[in-house]
């Protein structure tokens, strides 16, 4: 190791220790400082265990949490970025907090959620063993740029990567990564068989309409959701695969699925969760994790943290789901439609820096399919934008209540009984959780 690297880690570690002595949680700050000083500082860490990374537009946090849950069984020590600090500086902070003064990181597994655009820079410095890529969707275009640019960045990295590459075989954007390095014998695809609500036509805005190899329009046998489905190029054969893991007999009402000849039950009842679970199952299979552990986790584990999180008040059940982009929101709309009973929706839309200032993505959400939604409450810094969006889809404006203030929005939502759903975008999800909890606790207190 170069002396400069040793000094880098030593300095960073001093920073962390000082913060600890001051009883401060530095958060991302130590990593940020270190990264600013030395853009190659990650190579200074000596990690003595397999590194597993999860990337993709949607589902990173959930899949990382699942993998942690499964891989930590049997007293295994896992180091992971729980809080979703998934940029280079966040990962640097994580390692600083968990290393010795000389930069040794000791664990059974290092499981990292990594932002798509940071995969190349992080893993040019840390030896990656397994990379899981979930999907590529349009996401905060004003911040991230076009989807194609992002895919090319990751593709460039996997061209020289020969570790385990676990890819969603039903997304043309991730499928193509498997062809990037013909010498890599460790490419594995996961796939989910056609489910009940799959469609013949594209239902929601999608990416990757064209074959990345020859430019011909891709043909689909069916779409599961967005551009995820069974595709092939009629000209060059792009899309052929033998899945390493294939979920069959997906039944969202139980909810359950079959894989490798066995039936699994889960608490997750949406198609995109099935894909997340297929990614998790694939990672567990690569590492020969005991099937009972996998079964138990798939049956009981919940991520919460604003991802399909349930809240209860009086006789109402509310499901809150994060949606950073159209695909995420469309999934929640699908889910609430699959419930035939009357229900109300809260939509919280912010346009802070981390959300992207551009809110035009809400126009890629398909609201025309609303099924028995009796009222909509909108909130957030762009509460009126989402109200106009829903109105223009043909929904009765009389049934839309706009409350930019979150506490007022929650109060309005719970002024009626019945089933509720809430969608919140990135910076809105934690404030929404807080407002829901505060309202429920205050009301419970009032009654005593």
């Amino acid at each position, binding site marked *: 190791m170069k002396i400069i690297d040793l000094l880098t880690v030593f300095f960073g570690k001093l920073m962390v220790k000082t913060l600890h002595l001051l009883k401060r949680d530095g958060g991302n700050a130590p990593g940020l400082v270190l990264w600013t000083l030395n853009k190659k500082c990650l190579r200074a860490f000596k990690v003595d265990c397999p590194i597993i990374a999860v990337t993709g537009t949607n589902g990173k946090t959930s899949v990382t949490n699942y993998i942690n849950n499964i891989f930590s069984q049997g007293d295994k020590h896992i180091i992971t970025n729980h809080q979703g600090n998934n940029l280079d500086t966040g990962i640097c902070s994580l390692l600083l907090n968990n290393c010795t003064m000389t930069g040794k990181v000791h664990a059974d597994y290092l499981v990292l959620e990594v932002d798509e655009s940071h995969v190349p820079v992080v893993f040019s410095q840390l030896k990656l063993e397994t990379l899981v890529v979930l999907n590529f969707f349009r996401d905060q275009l004003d911040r991230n740029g076009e989807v194609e640019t992002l895919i090319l960045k990751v593709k460039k990295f996997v061209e020289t990567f020969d570790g385990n590459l676990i890819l969603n075989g039903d997304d043309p954007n991730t499928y193509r990564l498997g062809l990037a390095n013909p010498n890599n014998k460790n490419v594995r695809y996961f796939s989910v068989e056609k489910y009940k609500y799959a469609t013949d036509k594209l239902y929601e805005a999608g990416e990757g309409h064209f074959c990345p190899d020859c430019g011909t329009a891709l043909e689909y046998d069916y779409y599961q959701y967005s551009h995820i489905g069974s595709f092939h190029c009629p000209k060059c054969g792009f899309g052929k695969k033998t899945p390493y893991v294939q979920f069959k007999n997906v039944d969202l009402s139980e909810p359950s699925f079959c894989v490798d000849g066995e039936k699994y039950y889960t608490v997750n009842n949406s198609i995109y969760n099935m894909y997340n679970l297929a990614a998790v199952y694939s990672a567990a299979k690569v590492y020969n994790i005991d099937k009972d552990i996998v079964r138990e986790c798939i049956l009981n584990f919940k991520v919460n943290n604003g991802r399909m999180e349930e809240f209860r008040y009086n006789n109402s059940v509310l499901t809150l789901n994060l949606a950073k982009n159209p695909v995420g929101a469309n999934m929640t709309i699908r889910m609430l439609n699959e419930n035939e009973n009357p229900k109300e929706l809260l939509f919280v839309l912010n346009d802070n820096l981390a959300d992207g200032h551009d809110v035009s993505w809400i126009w*890629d959400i398909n609201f025309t399919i609303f099924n028995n939604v009796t009222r909509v409450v909108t909130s957030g810094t762009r509460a009126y934008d989402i109200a106009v969006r829903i109105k223009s889809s043909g929904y009765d404006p009389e049934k839309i209540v706009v409350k930019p203030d979150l506490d007022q929005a929650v109060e309005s939502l719970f002024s009626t009984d019945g089933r509720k759903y809430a969608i919140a975008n990135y910076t809105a999800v934690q404030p929404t959780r807080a407002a829901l909890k505060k309202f429920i606790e205050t009301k419970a207190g009032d009654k005593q």
Partner: protein
Amino acid sequence: MKTIKILHMYSNILDLYGDSGNMEVLKYRSKMRNIDCEIEYHSLGTENTDFSKYDLIYLGGGADFEQQLLGDDLQKCKNDIISAYKNGTFLLLICGGYQLMGQYYLDSNKENIPGLGLFDYHTVASSDKGKRCIGNIVVEAELNGKKTKVIGFENHGGQTMNITKPFGKVLFGNGNSFNDSTEGYFEENVIATYLHGPLLSKNPDVADYIIEYCANRNQQDKITLAPLNDELENKCREVMFDRLLK
């Protein structure tokens, strides 16, 4: 019932930034006035499109890669689009659609994409892909002699130059190029602009201008559109004007 015939070109390719929402808004606001919107599509592989039968031709924005894909097909439609425009068909052109109707577009890879040459302007993108005009934008346009503020979101690397008749004066944001004073291109039957949002979602005046133009095209008896309840739209505009213009 009156019918407006719309041709939405390359809806499956030029569909970034929610631009298809413009069609939804037109449909909604027409329907509220008892006017029917008949939307048909032209894309790669569509044969025998009769461009002369439409009141409105619409093109949205797309990524560079996708803009290249449709180049050949668009050139094939060139003469038909020009004669439709000369016949008074309304052209609503957003971002990529705006650029493609000019003389040429020199993209960030220095690739020259020829335009249809309907208008004199041309567009050049910086070779530095990071240099883009991105952000909220407010311009002041004049429609039927009435000044109106138009709000949207711009996100373009291309800098459009040699504009003779801009769509509006920039009150906040960049416009046709970095820190420009003007935005877009305008004729009685042409609105070409960088404004996403989508454009018509927060600008009922612009939407109604287009609907009225299309509904009255080739008609003896001209109609005036009845006002709608735009309370939500107006509040939405107010919030953003307060934030950006004060």
